[in-house]
């Protein structure tokens, strides 16, 4: 019985609304006015404006207290409209609508553009006035005005305090360990199989009289993995020059090629054999992933290098290169920070440098105190992370408080 009444009522209201809509369509006055049988909602109160924090000086934050009809009272508020102008005495038509937010929201960030020509330009250091209306079905409340406020630049983004603390701690640790290293204090690092293999591999190439293939990956010079690979390349080139063997470095990006040429040349010069460097040994193939792989695969099968070294940024080509290398009978050493490609290198190559080991490789090969210093700093930060994790979790278990569930998310500072 209950349902039948409900159904009846629903049908009735549907019919009524249909009739109402039809009436609106037939009558001439603007649709907005005609649609509305309801009273306007009460306006929002206590509108405040202030400079938007952590921005480039072209933003204002507008805040207000909700209209009494927002979710309570008559519940007639649907949204809030925010308007802005330069002169508070402007007629309504000159106020520019800058945004709309749905009911229940008490704040709006008005972010403008920097260029005066553009439509949403918001001038800096200028008095701005704001209006906020509560909007109901086709009606809006009386106005609530606030201002002036000026947009200003901020010189520090307070949301980035964790990053700053991290950087400073890292810098301090690095400097400290570099100083220790300079004083001659021995900094122990455990052996890494993949890196020791590089030395052996160069020796093997010398014995076999075959070249070493060094692939820097398909990243650009903008990828930090590529940069890490350059630092290893310099040292490999130096050893190659010392052992008087040859190397091939195909590149997938012209900038990478240029830097690689300079790096290899330096390596040869460091070994005291600058004349042995051949410009054509470091060459550019093409900037696209698969053409690059096709060419390198061809090179692997034709030159049959004794050793293939793949260090840098890799994507799907990891397995294509590594399996072709197996076929050519080369010893293969790979390393990348791309977690998705590590499985293929691990399966198909003889040695794989996992993630961070790639970045550590140059320090290992060079054994220079300055480089070992940064390695130690990394380790200390890892230790700090470990200790913090255990301590905070223990604290949480004991107190049962949830305050540390996201230690870096809330701006608690």
């Amino acid at each position: 019985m209950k349902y039948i009444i409900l159904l009846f009522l629903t049908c009735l209201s549907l019919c009524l609304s249909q009739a109402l809509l039809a009436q609106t369509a037939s009558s001439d006055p603007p649709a907005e006015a005609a649609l509305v049988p309801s009273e306007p909602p009460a306006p929002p109160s206590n509108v405040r404006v202030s400079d938007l924090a952590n921005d480039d000086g072209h933003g204002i934050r507008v805040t207000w207290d909700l209209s009494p009809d927002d979710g309570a009272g008559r519940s007639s508020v649907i949204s809030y409209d925010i308007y802005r102008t330069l002169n508070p005495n402007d007629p309504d038509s000159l106020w520019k609508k800058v945004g709309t937010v749905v009911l229940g929201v008490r704040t709006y960030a008005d972010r403008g553009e920097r260029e005066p020509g553009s439509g949403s330009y918001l001038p800096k250091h200028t008095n701005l006035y704001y209006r906020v209306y509560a909007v109901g079905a086709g009606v809006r409340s009386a106005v609530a005005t606030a201002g002036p406020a000026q947009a200003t630049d901020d010189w520090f983004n307070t949301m980035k305090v964790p990053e700053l603390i991290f950087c400073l701690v890292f810098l301090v640790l690095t400097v400290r360990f570099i100083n220790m290293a300079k004083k001659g204090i021995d900094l122990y690092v455990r052996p890494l199989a993949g890196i020791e293999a590089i030395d052996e591999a160069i020796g093997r190439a010398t014995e076999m009289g075959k070249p070493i293939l060094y692939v820097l990956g398909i990243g650009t010079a903008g990828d930090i993995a590529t940069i890490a690979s350059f630092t290893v390349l310099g040292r490999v080139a130096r050893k190659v020059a010392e052992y008087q063997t040859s190397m091939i470095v195909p590149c997938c990006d012209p900038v990478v090629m240029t830097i690689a040429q300079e790096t290899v040349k330096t390596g040869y010069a460091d070994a005291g054999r600058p004349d042995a460097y051949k410009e054509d040994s470091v060459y550019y193939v093409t900037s696209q992933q698969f053409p690059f792989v096709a060419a390198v695969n061809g090179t692997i099968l034709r030159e049959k290098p004794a050793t293939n070294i793949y260090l840098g940024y890799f994507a799907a080509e990891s397995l294509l290169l590594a399996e072709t290398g197996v076929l050519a009978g080369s010893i293969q050493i790979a390393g990348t920070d791309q977690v998705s490609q590590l499985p293929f290198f691990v399966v198909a190559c003889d040695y794989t440098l996992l993630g961070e080991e790639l970045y550590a490789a140059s320090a290992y090969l060079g054994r220079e105190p300055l480089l070992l210093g940064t390695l130690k700093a990394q380790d200390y930060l890892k230790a700090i992370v470990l200790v913090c994790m255990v301590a905070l979790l223990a604290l949480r278990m004991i107190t049962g408080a949830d305050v540390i569930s996201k230690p870096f998310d809330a701006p608690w500072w």
Partner: protein
Amino acid sequence: MTFHDKLLALDRRWVFLVLAIFVILPILPFVKFSVPVTPVKEVREIYDFIEGLKPGDYILLSLDYDPGSMAELHPVAYAMLEQCYAKKLKVITLTLSATGAQMVEEIVRDVADSCKIYHGFKPERGIDYVYLGYKPYPGIIILGMGMNFRIPFPQDYYGTTLDSIPMMRGIKNYDNVKAVINLSAGNVSDMWVADGNARYGVKLALAMTGVMAADYYPYYQSKQVFGIIGGMKGAAEYEKLCKNPGSATDAMKAQVFAHVVIIIFIIIGNLAYFLGRRKTAQTQESE
């Protein structure tokens, strides 16, 4: 040379041959069987999100894969784009893959055409969708779009300035779109997460090749992305959700055969290895 020695030293070209045969067989028309598909949560979430949008909402599809990954990502692109058009969403498309520019243009046009057949209306360029084209250095582009779409893309793919495209008026940056869906076969997804989500708080979902998907689950768990469609399986699931079965559903058949072949090869390899090891142990004992 004993049997297992031969097996251990098996020329890998035999592996290639057997695999090729067993992938071709199920595709041939006279082999008939079907595979059941049940969509997983992370795929369903993307579908539900798009279904929950209102007509006229903006959504950005970044189709950052190249022709090499067509097989896995095309089905998602087609199903999803058709879903967006059918929901009358305003769709902004672009690509951050150098070799994808023309391909994506074709997808966008194709789906608009097929929409006319299946849904009775044709979405119009500039009003219902816009294709921005390709620009190199994806990380920089993603950062640029966070400030204003016009910084990296002063014009769309066809050379029309953004301000003279009706649907782009007043659309400034990520704040104006409900979500970004990134279809990718490379590191562009990383940049969307690092530059788009972390720097600008973009609501992000990813569709990617099977190989990549596993590595992006941490971002799913940490709520940095709200859904993941992984590989052919995910694509088949999305097709199923959209009730739009296509190439992904078909291809699942060959998958089953190929997997069986590979597993059998792994088992044979291990058997040979253990037989060989026992043999060596025995010979050592007898010596």
